[in-house]
């Protein structure tokens, strides 16, 4: 999962690099970033909400929303600019890509302004100076003292984070395992896959105070200030916006707002959060997940099917240079889509196409999965068409029917009947594979379960719930499809 994701990001980054470069240089030449934000009246903040107390999901007035000290920082900046703050959730790895491709205006996610990151984005002054701790199982207290106690053991850290890199650098004989979400890391700790999890001190405190099985120890990492400080990231070259945000950030530092206001407020959410952690309490979140999963699946199969028909016809086009070109294009498309991971395609549509048109995550997800599914369905349809007896075409043509009518009224209906089971399989596969769009923040079932996990600090229960839910969906779908298959056989 981790490697796939990193590969996917690398690929998408490489692919959009050209565009990104041109947009950023254009921005540098005439920096209208501040004016642009003020004109649209909203400031979009990207964050990865599984890092309490920086940012996390909490149920406020019955509704799940992102809260935490970073959100408070974001709100302050937006307020000082006179615009509205909009919070957009996504995985930590995706944040900087989202910033570079204009999906978000700024990133506040407990992010350290490391030199490597500075190459790609601009940072404000530091709004919070933290430090690192290591969370361990309470039973192990006394065995582990700091980062050097884990020789021959495994510690975990969030992939792409500073802790991850420093843990690798500053330990020897210790395996460092990266995972995308902190909830997963804590789960790994509790299931003894990991012996410790490195994270920022406030986060560690939040987890320990919410889970009696956990304890924290100092990390004793040797760190420069930039490695422990948190800053707000903006797109490269947005000087005016950074300058404006710096005014807010300086106020936050001067008045010590983080320690005085933001952290205590976040702590309150953390307490209310853990009152009711039963899965039933979260039925609304799961229902929303099911709804989105089904929307994505049904739309993708529908559009994928149309695309599949067109592609399969294009692949069988006969006669003329145009037909040859069409055939070649369709073949190349099918091969390319089948030869690249769906995850990369999803990210490419969301981030890559996002440079040209700003598509919402849900629509990007549906487009990417339809494009993907179309390539597979095209192959099923082509097989189905080839399986129809040639005599059928000859009979239709001998009656004076055009090749188009022959295809539409005689061959395709029979081909579809033949491939109905394969199409059904594709539908069921998509119910499961649509979960990939969770990486771009679409609230389908996996994404929702991650919210519930970080909301309740319960690692396994939400996974078990969605497993059952997925099974119910696929099982029901396959019953329904079988029913239609039997009905079609009667003809």
């Amino acid at each position, binding site marked *: 999962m981790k490697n796939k994701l990193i590969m996917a990001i690398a690929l998408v980054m490489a692919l959009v690099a050209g565009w990104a470069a041109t947009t950023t240089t254009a921005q540098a030449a005439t920096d209208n970033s501040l004016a642009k934000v003020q004109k649209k009246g909203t400031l979009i903040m990207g964050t990865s909400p599984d890092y309490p107390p920086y940012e996390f999901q909490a149920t406020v007035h019955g509704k799940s929303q992102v809260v935490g000290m970073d959100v408070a920082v974001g709100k302050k900046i937006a307020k000082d600019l006179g615009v509205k703050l909009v919070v957009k959730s996504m995985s930590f790895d995706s944040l900087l890509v989202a910033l570079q491709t204009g999906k978000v205006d700024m990133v506040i996610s407990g992010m350290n302004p490391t030199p490597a990151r500075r190459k790609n984005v601009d940072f404000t002054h530091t709004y919070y100076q933290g430090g690192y701790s290591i969370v361990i199982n309470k039973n192990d207290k006394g065995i582990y003292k700091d980062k050097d106690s884990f020789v021959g053991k495994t510690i975990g850290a969030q992939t792409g984070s500073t802790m991850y890199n420093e843990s690798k650098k500053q330990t020897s004989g210790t395996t460092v395992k990266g995972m995308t979400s902190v909830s997963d890391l804590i789960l790994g700790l509790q299931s003894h896959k990991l012996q410790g999890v490195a994270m920022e001190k406030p986060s560690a405190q939040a987890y320990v105070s919410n889970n009696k099985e956990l304890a924290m120890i100092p990390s004793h990492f040797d760190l420069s200030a930039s490695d422990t400080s948190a800053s707000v990231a903006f797109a490269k070259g947005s000087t005016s916006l950074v300058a404006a945000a710096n005014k807010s950030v300086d106020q936050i530092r001067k008045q010590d707002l983080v320690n005085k206001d933001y952290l205590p407020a976040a702590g309150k959410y953390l307490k209310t959060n853990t009152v009711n952690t039963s899965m039933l309490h979260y039925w609304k979140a799961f229902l929303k997940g099911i709804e989105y999963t089904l929307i994505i699946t049904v739309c993708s199969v529908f559009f994928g099917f149309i695309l599949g028909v067109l592609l399969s016809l294009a692949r069988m086009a006969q006669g003329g240079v145009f037909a040859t070109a069409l055939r070649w294009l369709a073949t190349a498309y099918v091969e390319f889509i089948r030869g690249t991971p769906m995850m990369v395609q999803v990210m490419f549509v969301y981030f890559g196409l996002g440079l040209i048109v700003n598509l919402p995550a849900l629509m990007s997800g549906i487009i990417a999965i339809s494009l993907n599914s179309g390539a597979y369905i095209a192959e099923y349809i082509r097989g189905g068409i080839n399986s129809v007896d040639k005599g059928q075409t*000859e*009979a*239709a*043509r*001998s*009656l*004076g029917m055009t090749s188009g009518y022959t295809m539409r009224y*005689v061959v395709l209906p029979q081909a579809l009947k033949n491939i109905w089971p394969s199409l059904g399989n594709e539908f069921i596969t998509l119910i499961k594979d649509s979960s990939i769009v969770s990486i771009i923040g679409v609230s389908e079932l996996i994404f929702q379960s991650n919210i519930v996990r970080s909301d309740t600090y319960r690692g396994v229960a939400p996974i078990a719930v969605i497993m059952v839910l997925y099974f119910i969906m696929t099982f029901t779908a396959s019953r329904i499809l079988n029913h239609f298959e039997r009905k079609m056989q009667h*003809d």
Partner: protein
Amino acid sequence: MTKPIIEVKNLAKNFGDNQVLKDISEQVDTGQVIVVIGPSGSGKSTFLRCLNLLETPTSGEVDFDGQDLTTLDTKKVNTLREQMGMVFQNFNLFPNMTVLENIKLAPMKVKGISDTDATKRAHELLKQVNLDDHADAFPTSLSGGQAQRVAIARALAMDPKVMLFDEPTSALDPEMVGEVLNVMQDLAQQGMTMVVVTHEMGFAKSVADRVWFMADGYIQENNTPEAFFSNPQTERAQDFLSKILM
């Protein structure tokens, strides 16, 4: 009156290196029934399929109603095909449609005839082939003889000027051959121009105006049935008949 409806001039057809039809020049007059016979693999089906351009001739002309089909564009070929009904050895009924729908499809989609009119005509044709009680059946529930009669009705629904038959009874159980041949004989009596590839020598003798004997890529003989069967001219034909008639 004497103007032929189909005139084939120096027709040749190759499949790669395989010269199936070498040089064929014949004509069919309106109202004539031609029976084409010849050994298996001699190119009878290929010849028939060249007449309605299901196969594209390698060289030569196929004139239909005074027009050379080989020079027409796809659109015109489609409209000319309407006028040449074809019946296949394996019926090729559309299995996803009822008998009635099989017959109505082309008139409605190609000629734009209304559903009511197409249905009315389909029932007439089904009566003509004695199958009106099977209008709503699906092809899989029909016997071979019934299926072939539906296929004939389907071709007739386009009101063709010529009917092409490619071994219409070869795939049938013997007891069903008669019912199909009877329908074809009725059709001939009504004056339909027909080109029939068949091994039914009885049908050739009683219904055909001319018999064409095909072998080695040529029409070796073109004669009346009486003359052909009683006195075949070529050794090829004598040989063929002696094998068939024993």
